[in-house]
């Protein structure tokens, strides 16, 4: 059974159709990437999984359980962490408190402390700035904090929305190195990216979204060679 299964998901914003009958699945331990143009519905898919937007129809099944009617915080309790587009760190709280809030659903204080040290080892820049307000960090540091914060809940499934957006190439490479590291640690990731070539290089499988509908799907390696994908997204 797949860890995440989406069946015929449709989402409307106002009267506008954002997603139309999207079905996809993510197996345990996989990196699956959703690629597509701006406004194709990539972020909307993640937001529907996290339940911060309402689906018009369709089902979201996590580990065999239908979660399509749960509240956002209940989704997090079931082991889904969503690292949102634009990072969305809590600017007025310290780096350390951002990480603590990432572990809000956990009750094991000792484990949380240990995990913070773990994240500091993964992102040494964050340790240097642990008492700084998150709003004073650079864009790359904020992205690292957003990923570290998402990991603090020890997710079974990590939803990553545009982690490379607006970052310098060097930082982007660093972020993707860490995504690879997480993959090796066995974290399951659903990755939304505009940088299709980078995403496909790191993913196992990929889906292409066009105007709210899935048009192409397949192994990442195959998609990298696919003529349609190359023309539209790889330049």
């Amino acid at each position, binding site marked *: 059974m797949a860890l995440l299964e989406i069946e015929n998901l449709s989402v409307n914003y106002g009267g506008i159709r954002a997603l139309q009958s999207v079905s996809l699945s993510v197996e345990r331990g996989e990196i699956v990437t959703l690629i597509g143009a701006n406004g194709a519905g990539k972020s909307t898919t993640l937001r529907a999984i996290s339940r911060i937007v309402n689906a018009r129809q369709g089902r979201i099944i996590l580990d065999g359980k239908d979660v399509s009617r749960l509240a956002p915080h209940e989704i997090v309790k079931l082991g889904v962490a969503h690292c949102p587009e634009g990072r969305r760190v*809590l600017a007025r709280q310290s780096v350390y408190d951002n990480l603590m809030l990432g572990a809000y659903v956990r009750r094991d204080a000792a484990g949380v402390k240990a995990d913070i040290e773990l994240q500091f080892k993964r992102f040494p820049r964050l340790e240097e700035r642990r008492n700084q307000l998150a709003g004073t960090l650079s864009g790359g540091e904020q992205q690292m904090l957003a990923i570290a914060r998402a990991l603090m*809940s020890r997710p079974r499934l990590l939803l990553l929305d545009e982690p490379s957006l607006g970052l310098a190439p060097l930082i982007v490479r660093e972020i993707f190195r860490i995504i690879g590291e997480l993959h090796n640690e066995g974290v399951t990731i659903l990755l939304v990216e505009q940088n299709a070539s980078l995403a496909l290089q790191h993913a196992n499988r990929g889906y292409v979204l066009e105007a709210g509908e899935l048009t192409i799907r397949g192994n990442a390696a195959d998609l990298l060679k696919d003529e349609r994908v190359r023309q539209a997204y790889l330049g």
Partner: protein
Amino acid sequence: MKLVDQSSQQYRRLWWFASRGFAAVLLVLLVTSILTTPGGLQNLFNGLAIGGVYAIFALGYTLIFSILRIINFAHGAVFTLGAYFTYFLTGSAVGFNGLLANQQLPFGLPFPIAMIGGGILAGLCGILIERVAFRPLRNKGADPLLTLVSSLGVAVAIVNVIQLLVGAEIYSYPRNPFGELPAALNLGTFGGLSQRPVIIRTIQVIIFAVSMVIVVLLTYFINATKTGKALRAVAEDATTSSLLGIDTNRLILITFFLSGLIGGIAGTLVGLSVNVSGPYFGINFGLKGLAVIVLGGLGDIPGAVVGGLVIGVAEAFVPSAQVAYKDAIAFAVLFLVLLLRPQGLLGRAVVQKV
């Protein structure tokens, strides 16, 4: 491009110095005038006592505003409710008007416990208000302006229910609510600083002390506890908070409870000082509370405290012959401050996100 940047920076620095300088001059003027006016220190202490209540009352608005960006117009009514709850919890009887005329509880609590109980009951009313007047509209995605109106409706309803149940007469708390304490303290002349001896009522000391204890406890709660930090997270970005597993609706309920709790205690404290003057007790106070939070900076906790103390002290300096202008003074201070600092005394300038 660079030139423009530099000059705007210089302008900002100049403005910074000018505004700080102006504030310093004002402060010096204020302190000297307090010390030289006959009875200045007396007024200062009187002002601080009532200002402390203004502060905690305004904190109730601030808590809800910082989370929902909505002014809860029912807050003044909750203040009134708290004062009445405390009255009945002390075992005192209802007057001879209203449906509950001459009724009383079969027991009477000591005043400090009744005050906390009254606060808790007011907090529960806060929760009820959230469920009835705020959440249904929020769930439907209604404009915040509509919620404002529905909270105003709740305020009117509460006032009328109070009148229906217990009438419109003045209620006074039992005498000597804190046991046999001297009625006032003589602080002397502060080594000749004050021409007349400064005398403060014991009640004023208690009011100020209770207010400050509440400020300290609330500050601790917001800044040092897990729930408090989650509350700040929701205030900053509710959607992201829910992605972290924070149940935003639950935290909003907690906020309404806290707001009602301190509002209710504020009502009791004012009732101690000047009696509970009827169902409209909190309405005038409610308006002044608005002045306080706008003065301090909307949604800013230290701002509400400073704003409350400033307005309290400013009012205390109104000469007794012009006491009718007391409320006007609060709003005049507000007007002046807003001319100079539209974001309020301690508020941050609103940064437009692009």
